């Protein structure tokens, strides 16, 4: 089913990457996957035909396909976020970055007047991504060079970033007509929605990047014990910086993929609260926020859960009001189910806690 389709699109070149990666996925992903499957099945039962995937004028069509498409944005965000979190950081600015990159791209295309040409569209895309990269790098600068706590460092751009985006669009909703640009969000490759293709591609690349090289391990070591890593010669500064930049870049891409179908740069609403979704996705995927070990595969599952969940609310004919309740529920269930406390009863790092003292007869 879809889970597997997306969980593992690595064109297994590096066997090692794969091995490490499946080991990481391991059982930490068990509960998230269960949750996902249950959700999908429930939808299937409530509304027959939910799980059908038909081919409609040359491309895949169906709720499941929609869900995959919806998952692309959160996944792109989550991948970057996941790496940042691995270094023990966090990036609250991704939502704003989405807005900025989209604003830049569309404003450029709008200004250029020749929106319909592929060239313009690509330049717009490139511009958006570059700006996003720069912003990511800025975050990295604050965190690594100036040593500001990630939460605050990125909070700054979370607030200011939206303002910047609105500066670019002058508060209007910039809309353009540019078929090639639109294709980024609503086009198809071999019948598969473009966003899905992009997300899968990025995912594969990043997996290669971190697991094919030693980057993954170094990220984890930095996240677990920065000082020790430094003394072991790990260039924690550069690596951390790189990761924030990457996160920004991916956020930018996410913004464009998100906004391309409508070709409207709504600076105020694009990516609003998406940083929380991204973090939620990462955590649903079994990566701990305190940094260290991380699972990219988890991000995929998390993203799918998130978008399935939002869809399920409508499918179940529930009023939109309860969507947050739903999120809360799933989040708590998955986290509790996955919590170490419950999994390994023999867990060593157990703090003192009340347990009925078993009286034992003893011959003194």
């Amino acid at each position: 089913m879809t889970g597997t389709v997306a969980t593992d699109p690595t064109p297994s070149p590096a066997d090692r990457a794969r091995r490490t990666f499946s080991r990481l996925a391991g059982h930490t992903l068990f509960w998230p996957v269960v949750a996902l499957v249950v959700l999908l099945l429930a939808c299937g039962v409530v509304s027959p035909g939910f799980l059908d995937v038909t081919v409609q004028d040359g491309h895949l069509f169906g709720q499941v396909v929609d869900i995959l498409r919806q998952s692309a944005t959160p996944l792109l965000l989550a991948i970057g976020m996941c790496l940042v979190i691995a270094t023990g950081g966090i990036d609250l600015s991704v939502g704003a970055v989405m807005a900025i990159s989209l604003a830049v791209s569309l404003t450029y295309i709008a200004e250029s007047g020749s929106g319909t040409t592929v060239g313009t569209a690509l330049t717009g895309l490139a511009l958006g991504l570059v700006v996003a990269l720069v912003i990511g790098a800025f975050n990295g600068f604050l965190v690594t060079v100036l040593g500001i706590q990630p939460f605050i460092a990125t909070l700054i751009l979370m607030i200011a970033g939206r303002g910047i985006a609105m500066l670019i669009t002058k508060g209007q909703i910039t809309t353009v007509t540019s078929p090639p640009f639109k294709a980024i969000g609503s086009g198809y490759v071999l019948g598969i929605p473009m966003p899905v293709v992009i997300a899968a591609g990025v995912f594969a690349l990043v997996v290669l990047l971190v697991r094919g090289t030693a980057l993954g391990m170094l990220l984890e070591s930095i996240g677990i014990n920065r000082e020790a890593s430094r003394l072991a010669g790990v260039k924690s500064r550069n690596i951390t910086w790189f990761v924030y930049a990457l996160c920004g870049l991916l956020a930018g891409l996410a913004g464009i993929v998100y906004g391309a179908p409508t070709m409207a740069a709504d600076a105020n609403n694009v990516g609003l609260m998406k940083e929380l979704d991204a973090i939620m996705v990462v955590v649903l995927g079994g990566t701990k926020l305190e940094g260290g070990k991380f699972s990219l595969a988890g991000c995929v599952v998390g993203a799918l859960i998130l978008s399935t969940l939002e869809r399920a609310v409508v499918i179940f004919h529930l009023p939109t009001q309860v969507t947050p309740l739903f999120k809360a529920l799933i989040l708590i269930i998955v986290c509790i189910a996955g919590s170490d406390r419950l999994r390994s009863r023999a867990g060593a790092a157990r703090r003192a806690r009340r347990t009925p003292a078993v009286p034992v007869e003893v011959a003194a």
Partner: protein
Amino acid sequence: MTSTQTPAPATTSRRTKGGAPRPGSTGGIADVARRWGHRLADRRFLPVAGTLLTLVLILVIGQARYSTDTRSFVNMRLFSNLLVDNSYLLVLAVGMTFVILTGGIDLSVGAVVALVGLVVAKLLILGVPLPLVLLAGVLVGTVFGLLIGVLVQYFSIQPFIASLAAMFLARGLCNVVSVESLAIEDKGFTDLASWRLKFGHGPSIWYINLSMIVALVVVLVAVYLLHYTRFGRTVYGLGAGDGGQAVGLMGLRAARTKVWVYVISGTCAGIAGILFAFYTRSGFNLTGIGMELDAIASVVIGGAMLTGGSGFVLGSVAGVLVYGLIQVLIAREGLDSWWTKVFIGAVLLLFVLLQRALSTGQKRRRKKNKEESPAPPPAAAPAVS
């Protein structure tokens, strides 16, 4: 591994650290003075100093820019407005301080404020007696705090996530209670809300109202809890890193304390919710969005480390005031929506940079202190076993 056992008299191993002289050593006053010197220059206090500095800075700027010949920018009215407008934020920040000291975070407070407002409004409309309503309001907060605390402590879910879940939960419940804003007409409530002492007259008139007083009390209680009880010090200890294992092994009730911290933050959110209801006399499901970030930002501006273990309630108070003043400046400047956002971001950045500068400067000073500290006397025996 044989060794030469030469039992050394106790006195030979006397060493003084931290730059403090022996008790009762000569030149008492001077020594005391120096000791306090060291303590005030202590890394812990500097960020707070920085905050106060900024506070003054902003006031000066404001005074320079916005004073008209008829009235000066800095006047009692400004401060009373500042407190009236930010009393709820103050209470939130206090609660948040507890959580942040343990290295945790509570994202739910904004949503809880909204929920409490709605619950209060709803109950009053249903005609429930006022005291019960107020109590219920606060308890809503407490319950959410407890929920987070339990999730964090007993299911080892990270605070960020636990409180995120709580936030979603609260928002969802808000929508369930009502998606329309509910006005509060209840006589008793509005009386409480509008009760205030007037001072001065004409344009320079200023007030003290209930919210201010409540906020003040909360602050005092917090100071007492954090600095004059075992509980409070345990809270700091929990922030020492390694997930509070140290305090656990020290035999302090780490687990219980951790839960309590979130209960406190939740309760503060409950109180803040009521203050906010005083403020707006209504409940509305879209209020309090991003309020948690305001609270967190204030606490950080107040000099606390999000990694836990360092920070002060009074710092947070200063932080809230700075944050409030920034808002005033923006209002006076009449900035566009977008410039407003950029401006707040910029100020936050400047502020954090200032803090960095201070704390690095401090590190250098600390080394000096170490140098000063008396060295072991020559006769001290070596490490041999």
